[in-house]
């Protein structure tokens, strides 16, 4: 598959809702490379993305914005640098029921720091209200400590409206 450049990258740990979020705003059901989870991931969900997710949003006149979801497991992190090349920006999803969600946010911000510096990032906190291991203020305080004022919103990955607002915040940063 040729990696397009007019693309938005969705990233985040396993179970953060990347595949679901892409599905909620794309014009076609995403092409997913899901298989049965076999490792620790199995405790969190039945399937997991082992390659990447792909879909798009049509803009008319044959123009599209492509949506790529990175695999969530650390062992596929080598793909991240390849995937982001030439991309528009990053959507980082963090599941709030992760045992260290704020730490995860920092990990991904550090992992993609070069791409973020060139483009921009928005952060969606998913799975709030299930088992909250942090509140929105915790993420905001951590970002303030890092002197980074990025959008951080509570998001239901199934909601096209929420994911659209997240993407629009990214566009507001870029424009």
């Amino acid at each position, binding site marked *: 598959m040729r990696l397009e450049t007019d693309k938005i990258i969705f990233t985040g740990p396993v179970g953060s809702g990347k595949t679901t979020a892409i599905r909620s705003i794309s014009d076609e059901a995403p092409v997913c490379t899901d298989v049965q989870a076999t490792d620790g991931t199995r405790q969190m969900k039945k399937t997991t993305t082992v390659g990447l997710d792909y879909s798009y949003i049509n803009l008319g006149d044959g123009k599209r914005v492509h949506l790529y979801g990175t695999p969530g497991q650390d062992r596929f992190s080598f793909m991240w640098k390849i995937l982001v090349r030439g991309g528009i920006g990053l959507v980082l999803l963090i599941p709030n029921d992760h045992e260290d969600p704020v730490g995860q946010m920092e990990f991904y911000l550090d992992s993609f720091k070069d791409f973020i510096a060139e483009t921009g990032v928005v952060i969606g906190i998913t799975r709030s209200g299930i088992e909250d291991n942090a509140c929105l203020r915790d993420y905001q305080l951590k970002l303030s400590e890092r002197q980074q004022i990025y959008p951080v919103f509570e998001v239901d990955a199934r909601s096209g409206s929420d994911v659209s607002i997240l*993407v629009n*915040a990214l566009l507001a940063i870029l424009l």
Partner: protein
Amino acid sequence: MTNERSMSVPIVVSSQGLAERDQRALKLVVEFVISRDIPCRYIGDGNASGHIVVVDLETDEGHDVLKKLRPGQVKILFSEERIVGKNIITLITPIKFDVLKKIVIEICRQLQSQLSRRLQNRAETERAIKELSNNKEVALKDGPNIFNVLFESKKEKSCIKVSVDGMPVIFVNGVDGVLATEAGIEKIQQILSSNSRKISVKEISYSDVPTASMGVVSVSPLEHALWLAGLSWRSGSLLDGYSVDDVVKLKAWPNFTRNNFSPDHLKLSAALSSQAMSLRNLNALTQVPLNEIILFFNACYAVDLVGMDVGNENKKNIIIEKKKINSKRRNLLSRLADRLGFS
């Protein structure tokens, strides 16, 4: 002018853990503040009760006092490392006198406006409460409206019962930061969006505020109410004495997925998070009308998302340029925003 003078409150500066030399310097700084017609006094070291508390974190006394200070106090910390937090300014040692002087003068200027306005608002609210002892409604010409009342309740951590223009009563619990009412969602929105000055306010005790367990009331975060009321309060003025030329910064983005907003708010947040600037400059950069920027600022300020960029008043005159992006990509992104319904 007479009203302003009678409303002026001396700003109290105290310190903890400062060396003799630094205490003398601070005393001199306070004299500079007074020379600018800002009532101010330094009450000495070993005292943590001032509006502004200067603390040397490198001493045991300074280090121990930090946790005991109140959130509302402005803390100027002498430290080798940067400390981040609400109302905290860190000066990396060794301290330069000119830097300390500039910062203290600026903070005193801002505090003077805030304290004067707070006194004025409190006087009006107390007058309204007094007149209500007979359960009369009061129409106040320039007095509080719903946004003002909610904001004061949050700041003062007070509990009040409010009725706007005969609409259903809302109970505000400034201690826990919640709002309780029997009114439905649409009515709540109507109340919070009201610019009516016909407002009745009664102070109540904490135990008199209804809770969700009572079953007949809905309870929601006070911050959501403040946000909505702030976006609706069309008075044209900024909270707490801010002016459109003060350099401000966004501390965090509003949580737009859970609060009302417009596409302009995304634009304003993006601009103000990339760089501290005055609201006048923000208007020039984004072309969002100034009156809309004022509403946005007030809403953000009420929920602690925006504040002064102390020590950077020189930024007022900087011409801010929009970031460069190639036209092809700009066109693509604009079309995507249209497609997602937010242009």
